[in-house]
């Protein structure tokens, strides 16, 4: 018992520091950007910059849950493509737009549900291989539906999702903040969230203490599907049309944001707020460097370095690491 509370304590201080570090980095990035480009510190430009990176950020929330569960979902970008393509295709066939939006969300939910069911029914297959296969399949279906065509010409109001403002604030930013609060509360204030952490810390112990591991996993993966569909809505609205190859490579961007946010791929650790800050950190960094027209290759190197250094710095405190490791191996023994 003493050990356990100690662990909580050290982790808490550790992660408080982590998120403050992110905030510091965020401020630093803004200061640097302001000095680099005369166009950076401008309300309109910053406001509109958020619109360019927030579409994929909706997938960050469920990915936080999934990574806390020690799993990973690399099929999310393909779900975006499939949901978007089905929505656009049905609309071009004459289905009302409102209806196709509902269908889009349903497609996302079904894809996520399939992922979740496959993962809990075939426990010997890891989430990586299941979502790797469905990643290919979902995008494959999108290709089968639209072939070499693009579909679009949506009604005027649909463009509001990605381009509209409410009281001068981008609608997509408002939606993002609302979702961030919902998912933050879900993870940190509900039994569901506590169970997610419990599973991530020690799946076996969680199972023995009566947590319905399978049910929670299926729910989380379904949520990931739904959020991918929401990304599909915003992305399609921003592009005004869609193709089977949209959102290619988004999964890695999303995973990078989550991990930069301090969510450990070893499971059980990390908080929603870190991921939210990481979204803005990477987004604003990209925007600032884009404004001084930094070549894409240099930008890639900077993002890569940022990822590695940001994750490496806190690890240079061996004491904390050792402590958590010791606790872990102990709890493993108990579970075994």
């Amino acid at each position, binding site marked *: 018992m003493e050990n356990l509370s100690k662990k909580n304590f050290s982790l808490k201080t550790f992660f408080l520091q982590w998120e403050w570090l992110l905030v510091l980095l965020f401020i630093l990035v803004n200061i640097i950007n302001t000095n680099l480009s005369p166009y950076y510190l401008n309300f309109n430009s910053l406001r509109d910059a958020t619109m360019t990176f927030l579409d994929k950020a909706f997938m960050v929330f469920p990915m936080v849950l999934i990574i806390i569960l020690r799993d990973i979902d690399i099929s999310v970008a393909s779900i975006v493509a499939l949901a978007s393509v089905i929505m656009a295709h049905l609309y071009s066939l004459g289905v009302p737009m409102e209806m196709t939006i509902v269908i889009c969300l349903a497609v996302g939910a079904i894809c996520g549900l399939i992922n979740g069911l496959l993962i809990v029914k*075939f426990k010997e297959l890891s989430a990586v291989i299941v979502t790797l296969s469905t990643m290919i399949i979902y995008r494959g279906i999108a290709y089968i539906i639209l072939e070499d065509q693009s579909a679009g010409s949506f009604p005027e109001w649909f463009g509001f999702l990605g381009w509209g403002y409410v009281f001068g604030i981008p609608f997509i930013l408002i939606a993002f903040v609302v979702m961030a609060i919902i998912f933050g509360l879900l993870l940190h204030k509900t039994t569901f969230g506590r169970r997610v952490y419990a599973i991530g810390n020690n799946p076996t112990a969680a199972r023995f203490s009566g947590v319905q591991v399978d049910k929670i996993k299926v729910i989380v993966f379904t949520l990931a599907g739904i959020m991918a569909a929401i990304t599909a809505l915003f992305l399609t609205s921003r592009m005004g049309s869609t193709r089977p190859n949209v959102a290619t490579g988004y999964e890695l961007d999303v995973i990078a944001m989550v991990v930069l946010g301090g969510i450990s791929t*070893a499971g059980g650790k990390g908080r929603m707020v870190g991921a939210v800050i990481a979204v803005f950190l990477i987004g604003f960094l990209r925007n600032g460097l884009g404004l001084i027209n930094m070549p894409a*290759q*240099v930008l890639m190197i900077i993002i890569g*370095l940022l990822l590695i250094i940001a994750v*490496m710095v806190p*690890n240079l405190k061996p004491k904390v690491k050792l402590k958590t490791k010791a606790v872990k191996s102990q709890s493993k023994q108990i579970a075994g």
Partner: protein
Amino acid sequence: MSEKPTAKVSLSASIARFREVGLLGFIILMSIVVQLRNPSFLTLENLNDMITNTAILSILAIGMMLVIITGGIDLSIGATLALSGMITALTVGAYPNLNPIMAILLGILVGIVSGGILGVIISKGGVLPIIATLGMMYIFRGLTFMVSGGKWVSAHQMPVSFKGIATGSFLGINNLILIAVITYLIFFYFINHTRTGRQIYAVGSNPDSAKISGINHDRIIWLVYTLMGGLSGLAGVLWVSKFASAQGDTASGYELTVIAACVLGGVNIAGGSGKISGLILGSVLIGILNNALPLINVSPFWQMGIQGSIILIAVILNALVKRGVDLNALMRRKI
């Protein structure tokens, strides 16, 4: 006394064999279906093409297997491959008289350096493999674009000897196949018959007890990423030589194909297990998919969906077969 352990060994060996037989059966079944649709599938020429095209994949798969056995993953190999290929191509372009062996060694060196840096970041820096390799993927890819200045190295800029690496043959067997076979033999020996090789498994299956039993955990982790880098470097040279062109975006996204080959071959993504024989089957299955789908004349728009479905079916079947075997074993134990 001496009979009991041998019986146990043969049982576990037969289980393992059975798993691979399942995959082999699947491959044979698929080959028959393809052969019925297009009789040119099982011709010597096509088989030769197919194995040649799969050689690079299978070389990368060995390194990826080692990485996965330690519980890690390497997303940077496509970028390492491109970087080493580009540097080698630029070098042979500038010094056309360079011996092809030297070119290969140069590529391996570039890969080893890249992999070594990555290994240090993971083993000493304590960065999780997925994030370290993701970060290095961006960095290596960016570096590739920078050293090339956005240009490609084309066929006419490469000396004949360099292009000959991939097109030449020895005793009628293509060099790429030979290099892959030699690599497999070396690594088969390394993994199964050397102390370090066995330690890789130990680290993967139980890091804590490996540490207690005196295995230098950090060194092993560093080693697997360095080996992976070296193999990616080798693959980079072979790739550039085979296609006679070096681009900045060479092999982008190829890491997922390699991971798929490993997982199909029965390498446990959670670490600790994986065998060379399974790896060969996994690579062959991917090779057949890439080779056969264009041959059987399905609509190009269906190819992706079919490919994904076959991978999913193969891993699920494999899991079911394993379940059956485990159940049998359990029942036997009860008796």
